[in-house]
């Protein structure tokens, strides 16, 4: 598999070249166009039960498709739902990324994806949901963000604080805690602010320059309410 980012910036696409019989895992609905040699396999990662539990636990949204070049080499064009940058990561078998659900766009055949439960407090308060994806294995991994993607490099024991709704992905060598930035965590839970992740290196944290939740509520004020 070979990936190429087209139109880098706010509205990018990814062109994925597949050799004959090679596959790529893509977020469902991400496929824009493909060569006629490409088939969509509805098979879910991890079999029926895996699919079931994924559907139940990590939400319908994370049902990825497997696209296979079953009738000869070809290419697939993939695009994320939201406007924002795409980043390509190379997995070498040892590095692993924790990715928030909406951050995954595609992964090579050798990329392993599992949904992972967050610590109760982390999940409830972290904004990125109870389940995040733990992505390892080998091959290229394609992530997407809302807005621009920004990489934060952390040395061993170096700390950095990130508003949790801006999180995209981080390496599994990086630990983190959820902190409340203001008093009264229920208030901050509902106001959508005041919850931050304190990361501790070594590793890398990818963040997005826009907050999907805030953007949603900003949009909502322009939508007429009908009863």
């Amino acid at each position, binding site marked *: 598999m070979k990936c190429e980012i087209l139109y880098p910036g706010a509205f990018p696409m990814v062109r994925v070249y597949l050799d004959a019989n090679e596959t790529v895992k893509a977020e469902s609905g991400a496929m824009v166009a493909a060569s006629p040699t490409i088939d969509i396999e509805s098979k879910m990662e991890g079999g029926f039960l895996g699919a079931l539990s994924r559907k139940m636990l990590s939400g319908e949204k994370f049902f990825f498709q497997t696209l296979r070049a079953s009738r000869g080499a070809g290419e697939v064009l993939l695009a994320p739902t939201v406007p924002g940058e795409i980043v390509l990561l190379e997995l070498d078998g040892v*590095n692993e990324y924790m990715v928030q659900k909406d951050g995954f766009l595609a992964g090579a055949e050798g990329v392993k994806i599992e949904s992972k439960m967050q610590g*109760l407090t982390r999940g409830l308060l972290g904004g990125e949901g109870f389940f995040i994806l733990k992505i390892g294995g080998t091959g290229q991994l394609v992530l997407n963000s809302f807005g621009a993607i920004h990489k934060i*490099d*952390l040395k061993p024991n170096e700390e950095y604080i990130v508003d949790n709704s801006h999180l995209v992905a981080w390496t599994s*060598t990086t*630990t983190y805690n959820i902190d409340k930035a203001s008093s009264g965590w*229920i208030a901050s839970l509902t106001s959508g602010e005041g919850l931050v992740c304190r990361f501790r290196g*070594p590793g890398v944290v990818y963040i997005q320059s826009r907050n999907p939740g805030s953007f949603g509520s900003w949009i909502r004020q322009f939508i007429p309410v009908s009863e």
Partner: protein
Amino acid sequence: MNPIPNALCFGDGLPASGAPCVVAVSVEGLRVSPMGESPVVEHVVAFADMSVEAGGLDHDQLVVSWGEGSSRRTLYLKDPALIAAFRRAAPSQLTAHLERAAEQVRRARRSHRLLWSSAVGVLTGLVLFLWFGSDLIVEWAVARIPIEWEQKLGESVYQDFLSKETILKEGPAVSAVQEMTQRLTEKIPNNPYTFQVSVVQSPVVNAFALPGGYVVVFAGLMNKAESGEEVAGVLSHELNHVLQRHGLERMVKMLGLAAVVGIVLGDQQGVLGLAKQLGMELATLKFGRAQETEADLTGLRLLSDARIAPDGMIRFFERLSEKDDARVELFSTHPMSAARAERLKAELAALPKQTPNPFTFEWKQVQDSLALSGPKQ
């Protein structure tokens, strides 16, 4: 064919995401060969020079560090076989560290399992509650709200509301309502509330009570009523919404689980913050049918205890429900029904007969004073 990396190395000059490398355990220590360099440079780190701990997101990685300053290196090992080999070969002075690391891993796993089972437990419990006991959970949570919280909440909404309205400060209408409140509240056993009642100059035919004992009576209601007893009936009903904490129950229901958690944790600011989002809605809260019936019946009993003729309440309700008056806003929060009046009549028949004490004011004068003080309706 390249060897497969099995560790990540961190340090100055290395990529922040870690440099992949191949690590092997030997008698003297670790043999570390960075990937992508040819010829392969092998570096041996002696056991004596390194420190060891558990690390990574799940504390399941072995973190080996050595060196000082800019040449300090940190190695993250994740492969269980490699970690096992390391533990077998490592000398005793490192064992303590390692065992602590292993214990941390075991603890992480245990808490993981605990997390899963408790999550399943919480989910099951939640479903069960939604099925059978949401009312129970609400009651249980409401019973835990301290009176002071309730007062703080009610007062802020009350002040908010009053700041937008014209309040009658004095006069026959105000003293009449105060007399009614006084007579009703002194008959409430163990009353934890200090009731405050305001008369608002407005044609709206309504009255409401906020959690904590803040009551608003609109002048429109007093104009519509044919006697002080009728207004006292509405007042008694509203006071009982407060006493039974109906507003809080509705509020907790609307705010949901977050409010319950906040109440249990004693997070006053959080709960008040949540409740403020409801804001004015608290004033125009629609109560449930069961709550209305409860406020009706307890209201009727309170009237009887206070020796205020209780049939005034019934008459007022009946009269209002007959009229098809769109401006009677009491209906929007208090749908009237014949069944409701019937139930009150039945309850009244069952109550011991009391000789009512009339109010000291002349109702006609009270109404006239309202017409004088306010704009023509």
